[in-house]
């Protein structure tokens, strides 16, 4: 298997380096880096905005670009946290804790340098993992019947809802709501119109772009308008400041390794994303350290470990998505949604049916990460300047893109109307302390889930026990129960202790600028 893996990878490089795909990848990582640097514009919003535009692109290019945005944003996000103490994205909140003190000590450039090194290292590890693990997973998954797929999807849905931000209960509610929204439209089996409220436009279902842009674009803008703190950057960062000293490297490199391992483990578990990975690795680093009091004052391990962890987790996130077709979080759900629109069925057969896509994507990860290092090291000054663009210029252009983008999908004004309706609904949800990201998970998986459920029950002649009889399915169901059990346990224990027990201290008061993301 190793031999074929390598030859497939080489083929993947050929695909990724084809000039059109290379440009798409480049566009993706640049946009991602920009989005990552700017506070107020989330990765989810950016991917949603570009989603309709990818419908006319070849599928390989589309996936390369959207993925590039995702991991590109991780590079940019650290810049904001370190230099300004502003976590632009939840995954980089931890980086503020030690990154900003380093800036204050004049070592901001070093922190950035270590970030880039750790990021590249973590990402590379994640990529290698994907190369070996994904085909293995596919091999196993091809043996799955509808009952197993159903249970796995259930596990994925539960994991995505309970491990994401906020209350697990509300997370599950959001996922269920997403499943519901996925039902709207004509039922393929019977031709019945479900929940279309008499609107012919809804017969094909709710448009993914409208939902995504409404929840993560419009709702976010309504929430953040006039709410973003203006950014003041009083310093210059030069490329030569970025090279870390020997002493720094000696402390940072082991931390990098540890962070990478933790990130990869988190990536394997569906539902845990870069944010959780970063928190866990920071906490672990602090606990392992011989001088934990240095953390919070500019300990370089506190920057190296979470960053490596975040990046390996981001690359690893693609594994269950590409090999099993089960998205781990909202971003992956969007990516899968984009593939479905292109007529590509996600699932274990993807690697065999579309090897170009799969291996081209993996190859592009490396190319993309190298591009990002090139972008971030010599051009660090530019990113710092972009940081300073006022939000009031960004969000109107974003609204413009939302309107035109959704309209461009199907030339259907109704769908732009859907977007604004979802924007309002999304805002209401946020005010009620729901986090809408899991809705996308449910929405994208819903139709497949119902389909497989129906098939499983048909094959078992209406008997529910088929889900427990199959050992694989039973394992997934058991894991799901375990997840719920853990949540209940934590809840009960929290009630008894009477307070919240958290791993990490409160992130500096930039809380208002944290944009809604997936986990």
């Amino acid at each position: 298997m190793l031999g074929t893996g390598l030859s497939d990878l080489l083929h993947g490089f050929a695909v990724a380096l084809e000039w059109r795909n290379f440009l798409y990848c480049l566009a993706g990582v640049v946009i991602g880096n920009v989005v990552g640097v700017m506070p107020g514009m989330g990765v989810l919003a950016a991917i949603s905005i570009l989603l309709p535009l990818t419908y006319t692109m070849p599928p390989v290019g589309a996936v390369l670009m959207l993925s590039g945005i995702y991991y590109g944003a991780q590079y940019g996000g650290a810049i904001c946290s370190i230099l300004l103490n502003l976590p632009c994205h939840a995954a980089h909140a931890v980086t503020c804790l030690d990154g900003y003190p380093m800036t204050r000590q004049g070592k901001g450039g070093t922190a950035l340098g270590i970030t880039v090194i750790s990021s590249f290292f973590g990402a590379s590890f994640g990529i290698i993992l994907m190369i070996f693990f994904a085909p293995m997973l596919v091999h196993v998954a091809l043996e799955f019947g509808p009952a197993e797929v159903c249970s796995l999807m259930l596990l994925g849905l539960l994991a995505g809802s309970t491990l994401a931000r906020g209350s697990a209960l509300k997370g599950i509610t959001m996922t269920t709501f997403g499943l519901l929204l996925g039902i709207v439209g004509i039922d393929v089996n019977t031709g019945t119109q479900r929940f279309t409220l008499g609107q012919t436009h809804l017969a094909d279902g709710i448009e993914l772009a409208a939902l995504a842009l409404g929840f993560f674009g419009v709702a976010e803008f309504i929430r953040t308008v006039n709410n973003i703190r203006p950014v003041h950057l009083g310093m210059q960062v030069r490329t030569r400041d970025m090279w870390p000293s020997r002493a720094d490297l000696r402390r940072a490199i082991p931390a990098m390794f540890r962070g990478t391992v933790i990130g990869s483990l988190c990536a394997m578990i569906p539902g845990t994303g870069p944010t959780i990975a970063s928190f866990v690795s920071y906490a672990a680093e602090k606990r392992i350290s011989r001088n934990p009091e240095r953390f919070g004052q500019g300990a370089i391990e506190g920057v190296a470990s979470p960053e490596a962890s975040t990046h390996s987790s981001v690359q690893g996130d693609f594994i269950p998505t590409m090999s099993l077709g089960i998205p781990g979080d909202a971003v992956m759900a969007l990516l899968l949604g984009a593939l479905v629109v292109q007529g590509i069925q996600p699932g274990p057969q993807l690697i065999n049916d579309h090897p170009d896509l799969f291996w081209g994507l993996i190859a592009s990860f490396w190319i993309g990460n190298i591009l990002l290092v090139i972008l971030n090291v010599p051009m660090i000054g530019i990113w710092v300047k972009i940081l300073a663009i006022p939000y009031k210029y960004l969000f109107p252009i974003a609204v413009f893109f939302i309107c035109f983008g959704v309209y461009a999908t199907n030339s259907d004004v109704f769908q732009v109307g859907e977007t604004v309706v979802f924007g309002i609904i999304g805002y209401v949800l946020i005010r009620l302390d729901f986090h809408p990201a899991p809705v996308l998970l449910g929405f994208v998986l819903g139709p497949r889930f119902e389909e497989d459920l129906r098939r499983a029950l048909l094959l078992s002649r209406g008997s529910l026990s088929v889900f427990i009889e199959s050992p694989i399915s039973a394992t997934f169901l058991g894991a799901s129960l375990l997840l719920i059990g853990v949540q209940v346990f934590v809840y009960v224990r929290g009630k008894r202790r009477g307070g919240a027990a958290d791993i990490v201290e409160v992130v500096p008061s930039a809380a208002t600028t944290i944009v809604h993301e997936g986990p």
Partner: protein
Amino acid sequence: MTGAARPDDRAAGALTGLVGACTAYGGYQYDIGSFLEMGPGFFPFALGCILLLLGMLIVLNRRAGQEAATDAATPLDVRGALCIVGAIGVFLVMVKYGGLVPAAFATTVIAALGDRTARPFGTLALGVVAVGIGVGLFHFVLRLPLPLFTWG
């Protein structure tokens, strides 16, 4: 951020339960079928019941905010919200009465006015940039089937 009013989970739970009840009712109307042959109403009915249950759990589960409820507690910025929603509304109209250029300009400018620190020059410049992107990217590159100027 302290001192902000905690969002009322009763409303959240009630809303969830309501949506669940409506969905279950709707599902019931479309033939549920049986376990062997799932009807179109099966899945919606099941989901509706689950939502109903979740709604009740949310209400019962009210406890001290464990995560910073700041996102939920920040009050609505009315001007911003109206401008954003209004901008999209204007777009809906201008697709038919106006065309690509006026739509691009109006949508961007109205949305930009949502920011309290918006000033005439910056806002208008933003509108012009939007028209530029609209014409360049959407009209020429993507060939969006929206005429530059149209009426009715």
